[in-house]
C-alpha cells in the first residue's frame, strides 16, 4: 500500500510536473522523470496528451515495467501512432507543433539556461559531460518544463556552459539571439515550482511543496530567488498518483 507521506524526491518531481501538463497538449519528453510524468498525466488526467520521443516516435504507449533506457529504443515505439526519422520529429519542434518540451537538468542558472556539456572551462574541462542530445533543439524551439533535484551546486548564478538555452542573459537577449519562440516556463524541483519574471526573465518562486520553507529553498540555491507576489503551496502526491508511478517503474529505475 503506497503511503502518501513516504515518497522519494524523484516521485515528488514526477507527480508535481505531471500536474503541469494539460489535456490535448503535444509533449516532447526526455527519458526518466519527464517520461514518467507525461505517462502519469496521460493515465490520470490527460487522456488526450500526445508524447513525442527524440528517437522518432509520435504517440507511444509506455508499458508498466518496460521503461525505455533512452528515447531511442524499440520500447519507445510500442503502440505508437507513427515512427519517423529523428530529424523529422525534431523538425516538429521547429514547425511549431509542440506545446511543451519536458526535460531533466544537471545544472541550471537564474535565467533558466541548462548545462549538460562541461564543468569548468570548455577549453580545458574539469569534467566533460555527455552533451546536448536534442536538449538544445527542444529548449530553443518550445516552451519548457524542467524537472530536477534542488541542490546548491545545481542551481548556480551562471552555468559554466549554455548547452540548452533558457533566457540567456535575461531581458530580451533570448529573442535578440534569433530564438523567436519558446523559452523556460517552469522548473519543478523537490522543493517547489519555479517560474520566470516576464521582464527580467530571472527565476522566481511560484509555489513551495508541503513543509518546505522559503529559507530552505534559498539555502539550496546559488543565486537570489525573487518571489512571485503570492507564493502557493502544492498539494502532496495522492495515493493514486504514487500507485500509478510505482506500477510504471517497479524496479525504481528512475524513481529511487
Amino acid at each position: 500500500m503506497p503511503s502518501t507521506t513516504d515518497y522519494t524526491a524523484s516521485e515528488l518531481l514526477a507527480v508535481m510536473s505531471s500536474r503541469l501538463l494539460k489535456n490535448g497538449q503535444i509533449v516532447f519528453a526526455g527519458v526518466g522523470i519527464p517520461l514518467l510524468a507525461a505517462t502519469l498525466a496521460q493515465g490520470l488526467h490527460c487522456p488526450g496528451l500526445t508524447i513525442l520521443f527524440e528517437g522518432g516516435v509520435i504517440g507511444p504507449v509506455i508499458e508498466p515495467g518496460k521503461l525505455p533506457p533512452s528515447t531511442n529504443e524499440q520500447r519507445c515505439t510500442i503502440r505508437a501512432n507513427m515512427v519517423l526519422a529523428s530529424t523529422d520529429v525534431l523538425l516538429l519542434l521547429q514547425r511549431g507543433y509542440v506545446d511543451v518540451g519536458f526535460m531533466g537538468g544537471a545544472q541550471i542558472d537564474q535565467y533558466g539556461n541548462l548545462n549538460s556539456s562541461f564543468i569548468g572551462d570548455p577549453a580545458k574541462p574539469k569534467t566533460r559531460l555527455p552533451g546536448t542530445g536534442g536538449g538544445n533543439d527542444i529548449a530553443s524551439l518550445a516552451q519548457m518544463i524542467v524537472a530536477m533535484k534542488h541542490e546548491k551546486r545545481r542551481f548556480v548564478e551562471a552555468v559554466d556552459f549554455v548547452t540548452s538555452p533558457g533566457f540567456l542573459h535575461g531581458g530580451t537577449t533570448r529573442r535578440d539571439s534569433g530564438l523567436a519562440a519558446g523559452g523556460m516556463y517552469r522548473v519543478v524541483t523537490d522543493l517547489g515550482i519555479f517560474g520566470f519574471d516576464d521582464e527580467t526573465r530571472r527565476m522566481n518562486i511560484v509555489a513551495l511543496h508541503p513543509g518546505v520553507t522559503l529559507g530552505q529553498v534559498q539555502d539550496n540555491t546559488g543565486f537570489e530567488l525573487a518571489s512571485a507576489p503570492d507564493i502557493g503551496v502544492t498539494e502532496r502526491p495522492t495515493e493514486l498518483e504514487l500507485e500509478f508511478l510505482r506500477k510504471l517503474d517497479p524496479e525504481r529505475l528512475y524513481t529511487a
Partner: protein
Amino acid sequence: MASSSYLELRSKLTTRDRSLHEKVVSLEAAAALVKDGETVGIGGSTLSRTPMAMIWALIRARKKRLTCARGITSSEGDWLFGSGACDRMVTSWFSQGIVWGVSKVMRHHVETGKARFDEWSHMAMGMRFRAGAMGVPFLPMRSMLGSDVVRLRPEVREIDCPFTGDKLLLVPALNPDVALIHVQRCDAYGNAQMDGLQFLDIDLAMAANRVILTTERIVSNDQIRRAPDQTKIPFFAVEAVVEVPFGCAPHECSGVYEPLFRHMDYYTSLVNKDPVGGMAEYLERYVYGPQSWTGYLNLLGLDQLLEAARNGRSVSNA
C-alpha cells in the same frame, strides 16, 4: 559555377560499379574497405541498431585516426576511443546511456586531450546529413542560436534570411567517406529494409560516398521486390553487404533483440571503475580475443542472447 568540391563529391559516386550486382563479403573484407583517417558515419542511435560487429571488425583491423559521426553515441564510442581507432567523435551526446551515468572512457579521452568530441545538437547532426544527402552545402535551422554549443562550432554561419530577415543558423553538409549501417534485412545487392526507428540512417546512407551494410539476414531480391515500399536504402548506394546475426549486440535491433542489459551493466561497471585498465581488459577479452563475431557472441552467452531475443520479439505483442 559549381565548386570543385561539389563536382568531386559527385565523382566519388560515379567511380563505383553501380550495377545491380552481388556484393556479399566477410566482416574482415568489409573492414578492409575502410581506410585510416576516413570519416565514418555510424547508423542507429544510442543503444539501437548500432553496427557493432562492423565497429568490432574495424578495431580488430587496427584502424587509426578515424573521424566518426553519429546522432547519439553510446558504448561503441568508448570502444572506438579506447582502442585508438578513432580520435574524433562528431555527435550530439556521448555516454553509454542515461541509466549508467557519464562514460568515464569518454571523459578520460576528452579531458586528457587524447581525442576530440565535437558537440552538435541532435537536429544539427540530422540536418548536416540531410544537406549531405540533398547535395547542397548547408541547411538553415532555428536552434543552437544563442547557446554556447554554437560558440564552439567554427563550422557554422549565422545569417539574416534574405526573404524574411529572420536570424538563421547554417549548418554545413556532412558527407562521410563511408557509412556503417545495420538493418534487419537486405538482399545480396544491398537493397535494405529496416524496421522500427530509422534515426538518421537514410540521410546518412545517401550523404555518404559509400555504404557498408551489415544485416541480420540476407533475403532474396524477389522478397525485396514484393515490398519495395519497405526498401529504405537503394542498392546503388551500397558497396558491401555482410550477414551478421546479432550484429548489434550488446545493443538492440528492433523487433529482433533488445539490448543485453546485464552485459551492459557488467561492461559499464568495468570501464567506469577504471577507464584505462578496464577498457583494455574488455577489448582484450571481447574484441581482440575471439576468433570471430560468433566467438564474441559466445562470450556474451546464450542465456543473455536468448533473453534479449525474447524481449526483442515482444515488441509486436503489445
